[in-house]
C-alpha cells in the first residue's frame, strides 16, 4: 500500500450476489440415476427437477462495497448467509448469480489451523500453511522467525512434530502464521480468540496493528462487543438479504433489539388510577429510556434536541399494542391485513388537548410515514382527566413486508407547533409478511418488488389503436 490516495479505492464490491442451494434429499434418487448422474450432467442432461420447494437461497441479491481500509462486520442469525458470503468472496464456492470484484491480495481465515498436519514438524507446517495461502517460500522464510517468536513457542519445539504439541501451542502457531500473512484484505469467520490471556492480548494488538496499516478487514461475528470494537461498519444479513448496512453501533443495536424478537405490546404504568399514579423514574413513561428493560436504544433522527418534552407532562402512556381487525393482539401480520395500533393513555390535567401519533419505520430505519390525528372536530376538543383508548388503523396493502418499527407519542398542538408529552422511540416492532398464496397483493406475480411502502393501486388500460 502506497500513500493514501485522495479518492477511496474499492477493495471489495459485490453486485447482486445470490447463492442457491438445491436440497438433495439423501436416498431419494434411484441408485442407478445417482451413479449415472455425473455422466448425464456431462452431456448437459441430468434432468434435475427444478422445483421451488427443494431450492433454498442462502444469499439473495446482496450488494455492497467495501473501501480499502474499511473494517466491516457481517452479523445475523445462524443460517442468515454470513458464512456463504465469506465463502463466495474467498472463492471457495461460486455464486449462483451476480458478481463480486476484489482488488488486492486476499486471505480468508474461515478456521484457524486448516491444513495443519500432525505428522509434520512445526517448521514444516509453517511452510505448508503459508503456501496454502499463496505465500512464497522466500517470503515465508523471511517471516519465519517472527512467526515463531509471536507464537511464543520455544525454539526447541519448532522442529518437533505437531502431534506432540499441546492444543494451545498448535492454535498459537496457526494463528501466528495467519497473523503474518500480511494480506491487503482479510476475511475472518469470528475473530479468533486462542491461547491464554496474554496471547489473546497479543492477537488483538496484531489485529489493531493491521487496522492502523489500513488493511481491509471483513469478519463474521456473533459477538456484538467485538463488532463495535473492531468495525466502523456492519452489514446485517437475514435470510440472505441485507437488512441493514451502516455504522456498526447502530446496526449492532438494531440487531440485538431484533434478536429480542418483535415487541407487539408494551405497558408502562402500574395498574393504577389516574389520581393514584405517581410518576417514578423507573417506569420511564416519559421517553421510554428505561422502559421495562427492553429499552429504547436508537435515537430517532427526527428527534432533535430542540424538541424537548413538555415539563411537567400533561399525559402518560399506559400501553401500546398492535391489534388486528378483531381487536385482539397481533404478533405478526400479512400485507393484506388491517393493522391497528392501540394506544392507552392517561390525561393528567383537565382541559388539555392530547392526541396520539405514530411514526412508521422500515427495517433500515427509513421513516415511511407519520400518522397524526386528523379529525378536526375531535382534535380541538379538550379532554377530561382520565384514561383513554385510541386505535390507529393502517389499511391493508400499505406496508412492505419486513420488520416495521413504530414510534409512538402523545402531543398537544399549540399554534402550529407540537407540545410533546411522551415520545417512545421504536416502542413497537412487528413483522409484516407476504400475503398468503392466492391473495391478490401489490407484488402481483413478481418475486419481489422494492419500495418503502407497497400500496395496492388500480390500473386502467384501454386499447387506443389496434392493428
Amino acid at each position, binding site marked *: 500500500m502506497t500513500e493514501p490516495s485522495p479518492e477511496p479505492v474499492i477493495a471489495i464490491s459485490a453486485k447482486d450476489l445470490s447463492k442457491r*442451494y438445491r436440497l438433495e434429499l439423501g436416498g431419494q434418487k434411484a441408485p442407478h440415476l445417482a451413479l449415472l448422474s455425473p455422466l448425464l*450432467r456431462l452431456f448437459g442432461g441430468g434432468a434435475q427437477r427444478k422445483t421451488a420447494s427443494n431450492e433454498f437461497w442462502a444469499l439473495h441479491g446482496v450488494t455492497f462495497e467495501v473501501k480499502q481500509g474499511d473494517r466491516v462486520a457481517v452479523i445475523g442469525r445462524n443460517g442468515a448467509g454470513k458464512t456463504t458470503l465469506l465463502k463466495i468472496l474467498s472463492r471457495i464456492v461460486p455464486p449462483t448469480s451476480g458478481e463480486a470484484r476484489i482488488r488486492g491480495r486476499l486471505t480468508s481465515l474461515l478456521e484457524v489451523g486448516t491444513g495443519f498436519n500432525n505428522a*509434520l514438524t512445526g517448521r514444516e507446517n509453517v511452510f505448508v500453511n503459508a503456501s496454502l495461502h499463496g505465500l512464497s517460500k522466500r517470503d515465508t522464510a523471511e517471516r519465519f522467525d517472527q512467526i515463531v517468536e509471536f507464537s511464543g513457542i520455544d525454539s526447541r519445539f519448532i522442529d518437533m512434530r505437531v502431534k506432540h504439541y499441546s492444543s494451545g501451542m498448535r492454535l498459537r502457531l496457526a494463528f501466528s502464521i495467519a497473523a503474518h500473512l500480511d494480506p491487503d484484505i482479510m476475511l475472518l469467520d469470528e475473530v479468533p480468540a486462542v491461547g491464554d490471556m496474554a496471547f489473546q492480548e497479543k492477537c488483538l494488538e496484531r489485529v489493531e496493528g493491521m487496522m492502523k496499516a489500513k488493511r481491509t478487514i471483513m469478519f463474521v461475528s456473533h459477538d456484538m462487543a467485538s463488532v463495535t470494537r473492531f468495525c466502523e461498519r456492519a452489514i446485517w444479513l437475514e435470510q440472505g438479504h441485507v437488512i441493514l448496512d451502516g455504522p456498526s453501533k447502530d446496526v449492532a443495536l438494531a440487531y440485538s433489539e431484533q434478536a429480542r424478537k418483535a415487541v407487539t405490546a408494551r405497558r408502562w404504568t402500574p395498574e393504577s388510577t389516574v389520581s393514584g399514579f405517581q410518576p417514578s423514574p423507573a417506569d420511564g413513561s416519559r421517553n421510554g429510556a428505561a422502559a421495562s428493560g427492553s429499552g429504547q436504544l436508537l435515537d430517532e433522527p427526527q428527534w432533535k434536541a430542540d424538541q424537548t418534552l413538555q415539563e411537567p407532562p400533561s399525559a402518560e402512556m399506559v400501553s401500546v399494542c398492535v391489534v388486528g381487525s378483531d381487536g385482539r393482539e397481533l404478533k405478526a401480520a400479512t400485507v393484506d391485513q388491517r393493522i391497528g395500533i392501540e394506544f392507552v393513555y392517561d390525561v393528567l390535567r383537565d382541559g388539555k388537548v392530547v392526541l396520539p401519533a405514530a411514526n412508521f419505520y422500515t427495517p433500515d430505519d427509513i421513516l415511511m410515514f407519520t400518522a397524526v390525528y386528523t379529525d378536526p372536530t375531535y382534535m380541538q376538543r379538550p379532554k377530561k382527566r382520565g384514561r383513554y383508548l385510541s386505535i390507529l388503523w393502517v389499511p391493508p396493502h400499505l406496508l412492505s413486508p419486513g420488520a416495521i418499527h413504530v414510534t409512538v407519542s402523545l402531543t398537544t398542538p399549540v399554534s402550529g407547533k407540537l407540545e410533546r408529552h411522551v415520545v417512545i422511540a421504536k416502542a413497537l416492532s412487528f413483522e409484516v409478511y407476504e400475503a398468503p398464496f392466492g391473495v391478490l397483493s401489490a407484488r402481483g406475480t413478481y418475486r419481489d418488488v422494492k419500495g418503502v411502502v407497497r400500496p395496492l393501486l388500480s390500473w386502467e388500460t384501454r386499447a387506443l389503436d389496434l392493428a
Partner: protein
Amino acid sequence: MVESSKSTSQAPACEEIVIRPPGAFARVSYRELCHFRGMLWRKTQQKIRLQYDDMWLGFFWAVARPLIMVFVFWAFRGLSQARTGVTIPYPLYVYSGLTVWFYFTEVSTGVAKSLFRDAGLIQKVYFPRLISPLSHLFAETYNLALSSLPLLVMMAIYGEYPGWCLILLPLVLAQIMLLGLGLGMMFSSMALSSRDWERVLKFGLYIGLWLSPVIYSVDMIPKKHELLYLLNPMGGSLLAIRAALFGHFEFPWASWLYAVGFSIVLLAVGLLMFQRSERNLADRI
C-alpha cells in the same frame, strides 16, 4: 469461474479478482496454477514424506510389492512350467511390467480419491483444485523412480541393455501418466455423486492387470484376437515400455500411438468432468 486481470495501475495491489457464476466450460488458469506452484511443490513433498511416516523401511516398502510379486510369479512359472511367451529373463519382464502397472493404478485410484482426501482444505481455503490430483501424481512419480532402481540392478545382473528406443521412454512414461491422471479425474468427479465409483475403478484395475501384458507376453494372445486385446490402451503402453527398456523388442508404433490418442481423449474428458464438478465442489464434498 474466476478470472484474474492485471490492471494497468502501478499500485502494488493491482490484481483484480472477478468472481462470477461458473460458465459451462471453465478454463484452467495456468497462470494461477503457476502462482500456486509453491503449494503444489509443498503438497507433493508432504505426501512423499508422510507415506512412509514413522517407518524405518521406507525404501523397502516402496519396492517390496513388485519384488515379492516377481518372486511369486517367477516361482510359479518355474514350478508349473507355464508358458508365458517371454523371450527376455522373466524377472526383468515381470518387474518392469509390475512397477509400471502399479504406478498406473496408484495414480488413477489416488487421483480419484484426492478430492475427498483434501476435503477439509477445499472447504476452507481457495486454491486451484487441480493441485490435489497433480500433487498426488507427482508423489507417485517419485515412487516410480524409487522402484525402478532395483530394475537397473537387475538389468545389469542379467546383462540386458536398452536399444535406441530408450529415448522414447520419457514419452511413454508421460503417456501413462496422462492416462492415469485422466482416468482418475474422471472417477474423482463421478465419486462425488457416489463413492461406489471408487470401488468400480479398483475392481476394474484389478481385472485390468490380467488383461494387460504384465506377467505374460502379448504373443500368448491368439492373433485373431490381438486387435481386440490391444483396445486396452495399457497394452500398447506396456509393449512400448518393454521396447524402450530392452533392445529385444520392436517398438509397437501402432498400438502405442493408439494409446497416446486414447490418453489424450481420456484426459480431456477427465479434465472437463473435473472442471464441471469443481464448480460446486465445496458444496458437495
